[in-house]
């Protein structure tokens, strides 16, 4: 099973004819993902890799192929429109890989999708993968994943791969891995995915990778404390990052000292999470946690 995506996921790639879009669409297909359509306005009627039909609009793609998820590689000036187009076409799940969308555009996009039947992962995220279902929808290197029963959850792209790499090296497989994205405004946060992992019968435990800045890790800690029933180990990176570089006064005021790694780790520890001491210890900390709960020999 896993969360959000599985064998039944029919993926549409917006921006499939672009440099990144085409490379990663191919990689997803090679992994086993069921990519059923591409969309590039003006390129409708062509075929991608001789097997995936390209359409001018998401509406047409959905009508012809019953796509039920969209993966977006469209450049920043056009990505907000791409998200809204898939939402308008009734696509229930969108992963937007695009990095560099202006923040105020995402303010508006968030309002647009807010009460519509859609979940947005990202933007500025690596996407998500369900190794057991051979379903990779994003830019993560597929080969490092191993089917299994640990959920992985992160704000960062490459750091998610790091986490997965360490787990796989120890023979610990993943049920699903979700990179929620690093931008100030994203569609899905830690709490949303934690709730999905909690409800997923194929997930035994979770590894969560947080960062300095914002309050999402604290929100996750509060959720873990009151609503989360599974073992979880957590890392917060950025403890050695310089304090100087930030968004000016007002940004600092809103989050204040709660944005620091120390504060976040304290909250997560208090919530019962196993704390991962350094980024090199993701796999070993998870291993120990699983062993102590009898989930691993």
């Amino acid at each position: 099973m896993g969360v959000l995506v599985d064998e039944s996921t029919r993926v549409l790639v917006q921006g499939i004819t672009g440099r990144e879009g085409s490379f990663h669409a191919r990689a997803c297909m090679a992994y086993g993902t069921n990519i059923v359509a591409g969309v590039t306005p003006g390129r409708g009627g062509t075929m991608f890799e001789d097997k995936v039909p390209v359409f001018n609009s998401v509406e047409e793609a959905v009508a012809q192929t019953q796509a039920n998820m969209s993966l977006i590689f469209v450049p920043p000036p056009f990505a907000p429109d791409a998200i809204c187009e898939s939402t308008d076409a009734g696509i229930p799940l969108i992963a937007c890989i695009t990095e560099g969308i202006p923040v105020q555009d995402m303010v508006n996009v968030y309002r647009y999708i807010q009460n519509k039947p859609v979940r947005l992962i990202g933007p500025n995220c690596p996407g998500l993968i369900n190794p057991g279902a051979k379903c990779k929808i994003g830019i993560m290197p597929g080969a490092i994943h191993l089917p299994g029963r640990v959920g992985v959850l992160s704000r960062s792209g490459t750091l998610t791969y790091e986490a997965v790499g360490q787990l796989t090296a120890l023979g610990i497989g993943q049920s699903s891995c979700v990179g929620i994205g690093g931008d100030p405004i994203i569609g899905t946060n830690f709490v949303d995915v934690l709730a999905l992992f909690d409800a997923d019968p194929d997930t035994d435990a979770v590894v969560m990778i947080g960062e300095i800045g914002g309050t999402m890790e604290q929100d996750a800690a509060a959720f873990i404390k009151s609503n989360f029933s599974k073992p979880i180990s957590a890392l917060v990176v950025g403890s050695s990052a310089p304090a100087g570089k930030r968004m000016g006064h007002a940004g600092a005021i809103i989050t204040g000292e709660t944005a620091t790694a120390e504060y976040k780790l304290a909250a997560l520890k208090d919530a019962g999470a196993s704390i991962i001491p350094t980024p090199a210890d993701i796999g070993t900390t998870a291993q120990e946690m699983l062993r102590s709960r009898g989930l691993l020999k």
Partner: protein
Amino acid sequence: MNIHEFQAKEIFSRYGIPVPRGIVVSTPAEAKAATKEMGGQSVVKAQIHAGGRGKSGGVQLTRSPEEAEVAAQRMLGSNLVTPQTGPEGAPVDKLLIEELADIKNELYVALTIDRGHRGPVMLVSTQGGMDIEEVAANDPQDIYTEPVDPLMGLMPFQTRRLVRKLGLDQAVASDAAKVLNALYRVFVDNDCSLVEINPLIITGDDRVVALDAKINLDDDSMFRHADLKEYRDISQENALEAQAADLNIAYVNLDGDVGCLVNGAGLAMATLDVTTAAGAAPANFLDVGGGATPEKVSSAVKIILSDPKVRRVLVNIFGGILRCDIAGEGIVLAYNETGSKIPLVVRMLGTNVVEGKKILGDSGLSVVFADTLTEAAEAIQQIKV
């Protein structure tokens, strides 16, 4: 992107936000003449991209044109060090010469994007003129936060509430409301990540004036703000950081000797954490980004190599949207073009990792390969510097 106070005030003026009369100068003689024009007295303000100028000699009240000339002499060409610049300070090339203000009351007003509310918020405080972070830490109840709905904008009832929270009386309420509304327009129209007035003052004759002005622009929005791009002043940026920014590379100069080339902000932070934990000191934070070409990776490596502090380089690439072969090509390109002999520790994983390692292995460079973060940090530590 940061812009100068005088530039922010230009924008404010276009939106009808009152600012003191002022003249931008770049020589002491001009400072003298400008002060004469202000009636013989002025405030001389160093134009740098950092706050805390007042405490650090960057703002001086002068009582005569001659005094202004001396102050300008002192500031121009110097590197002003404030609590926000770091020890290297920021170069002062321009001064803003402003008329004196008759201050009755100092307020704080700002707009930024709040991640929690997922939209703009306006912040106000009666403790204007203070270091607002200290206020936030010591008297958080003195800062009021108003979320703004992006469709409705700042609504009249919100403006009235903000004016109330600022403790303003009827005499200035309507002018203050106009400033708050204009400030919101500034924020939205220009894709700001921060707009701040500290202090916003009430004058003795009940005028509302922006005595200071700070605007940060969203770098990602620059494709639609060609006009604002021209406000950029690279003299205010660390030279390497500026170079990196031009290439869309996230780079922050640090104090150590380990040059770091990483893809992804999270992994870059993790790399700093692990390097630091292993007892080595990073020379920089560098996220080369996702959609990188060999040329972009090469430019990133050249930035690292051109930092005189760098004695060893740690590459940590987890191929995803950036493929390992492209990273490898870029690294080799940079070393070949610069002829650098600085030793490398390379840790590569993920997409096209085999191709990437082969390119580096075949290159003739001094490369130590590592498989894990721990190994990489240890390998860096073992390089003699």
